[in-house]
């Protein structure tokens, strides 16, 4: 009779242990961020004297005012918006068209081409960077928006995702539309594309986020300060850490750059998680 009671007690104890561990881990997740926010609100001189001053007033918004006052930051934000937005739009258009083509239409060599595109999923960025950089040098694309946007358009993931999505739509819809005298493009545009909106949202948000956070290609392609994206620009100010403009200022920049993305994430959480899980289990 006592056995169940013991096991329930054991469960409760185990639960508490696990809960404590998870809470500890979540503190590890949050503490660095809180620390950064704290530092960003402090005057530099006071911090240098005593880091524990983070825990009490006076707090100041001076670092944020300085961040916003740095003209480059806004240029970088604008660049990031143009690059991420352009790449997202381009990816959605190309992937939707190609996804419909691969999923629904037949043309000579279709299956072979699709397999080749699938192989493209396994090619890491580093394997093409050197050659791509050289090609863009010849085309004089470095330090231009097209130089930052175009490489992303060659990524096969969106095509793969959209092809899968189009394949899941019943073929009878196409057939009904054909009997309704709609041409191929009209079927794509009026009948099927509106049904892919969830996939468009997933792919769009995923692409935008990836482009916004991309570091390597913008680092080697955009070498002029005016063409930096926010990610590269932020990195460039870090080089002389702890000396020039002060820790608090750097932290304010980090918060300034990170907060919009985190808010974006909270808003579109569902789609981001779908995209990330979907991307991995290709």
């Amino acid at each position, binding site marked *: 009779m006592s056995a169940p009671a013991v096991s329930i007690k054991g469960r409760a104890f185990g639960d508490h242990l696990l809960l404590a561990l998870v809470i500890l881990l979540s503190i590890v997740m949050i503490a660095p961020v809180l620390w950064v926010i704290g530092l960003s609100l402090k005057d530099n001189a006071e911090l240098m004297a005593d880091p524990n001053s983070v825990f009490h007033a006076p707090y100041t918004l001076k670092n944020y005012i300085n961040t916003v006052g740095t003209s480059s930051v806004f240029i970088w934000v604008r660049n990031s918006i143009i690059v991420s937005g352009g790449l997202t739009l381009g990816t959605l258009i190309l992937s939707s068209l190609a996804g419909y083509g691969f999923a629904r239409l037949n043309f000579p060599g279709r299956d072979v081409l699709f397999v080749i595109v699938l192989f493209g999923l396994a090619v890491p960025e580093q394997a093409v960077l050197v050659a791509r950089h050289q090609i863009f040098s010849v085309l004089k694309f470095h330090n231009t928006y097209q130089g930052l946007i175009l490489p992303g358009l060659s990524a096969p993931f969106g095509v793969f995702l959209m092809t899968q999505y189009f394949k899941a739509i*019943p073929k*009878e*819809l196409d*057939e*009904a*539309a*054909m*009997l*309704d*005298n*709609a041409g191929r493009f*009209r079927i794509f545009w*009026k*009948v099927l594309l*509106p*049904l892919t909106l969830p996939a468009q949202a997933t792919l769009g948000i995923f692409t935008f986020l990836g482009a916004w956070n991309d570091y390597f290609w913008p680092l080697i392609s955009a070498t002029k300060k005016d063409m930096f994206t926010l990610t590269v620009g932020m990195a460039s100010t870090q080089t002389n850490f702890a000396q020039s403009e002060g820790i608090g200022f750097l932290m304010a920049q980090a918060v300034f750059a990170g907060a919009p993305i985190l808010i974006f994430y909270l808003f579109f959480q569902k789609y981001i998680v779908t995209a990330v899980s979907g991307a991995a289990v290709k």
Partner: protein
Amino acid sequence: MTADIEIRNVNKHFGAMAVLEDLSLSIKAREFIVFLGPSGCGKSTLLRMIAGLETVDSGEIAINNERIDHLPPGKRGVAMVFQSYALYPHMTVRDNLAFGLENIGMSREVIDARINEAARILEMPHLLERKPGQLSGGQRQRVAIGRAIVKEPKAFLFDEPLSNLDAALRTRTRLELAQLHQRLQSTMIFVTHDQVEAMTLADRIVVMNNRRIEQIGSPMEIYERPATKFVAGFVGAPAMNFVEATLDRSAENAAARFADGVSVQTEIVSNQLSDCKHTFGIRSEDVRIVAAGQGNADGVVEVLERLGERTLVYARLGDGQQIVGSDAGNSRIAVGHKVGLAFDGQKSHLFDESGRAWHAREA
């Protein structure tokens, strides 16, 4: 609008597998034709070939004497109702109906007029602004039919449109379809594997099996004078009784003898029959239950199915053969009783080894 449809020597393969072999069929204007057959018999493929969703390997399909088998689906002037309805989920009912008309550049007034007329016929004006997701199965069915009606097609093609409905709704919709056909006076082709739908709706039934047409005929022809053993067995519930028999062709009309000596005098003319083995066939309603010793054979009742207006009696003959006969609805028979079975010679059928059927002379 209405049209006759002519199918001539059509063949169809999927890879190495033949789906239809040298199939020909004439459909008259205003006719309600049902393609009936088990799944995989090629009936849906044939319908989709008329619609233009499948190609014709060889042969011709013509509507009103105009070949259409080379035309894309939209140019054939036919409308199709899919099993899954295939409504455009993101469009309202009105837009669903309008889509095909907009695609051929029809003016807004004509489109609206046609939609309103179709909505009136189908009693669904109140549904026009809803989306398919907000409709019940039966309502979606109506919209699918409405989408066909507004096109004023030369022929309506239905691909098992009732199979997604529950039993009560299926019966009602069946009736409405029959009324719709009377009202529109349009050529309609209806694919189903349900013999009740076929019997109730069709002017003529095309029974298909194994890549070929087994028989074309009115429902009663199909039922009473099935051309083959397959048709005899496929149409009618419970299925026709089949018994292996040898023939006595000495008289003008042949008599069938079962293994244990039971003999049934048919009204089938002897000299048209061959010497080979035959199968004797008779429907349950043509086997009367009589007192033991009074009929052609005696059997022991194993199962009773009381349908209300009649009772189906499953009786085992001496040689182990089971025969289904029928008795009055309030029959007093009980399981285990020994009963006599009286076969109606006029309603008896014989099938030779190739499956071909022979019937009594027509009255």
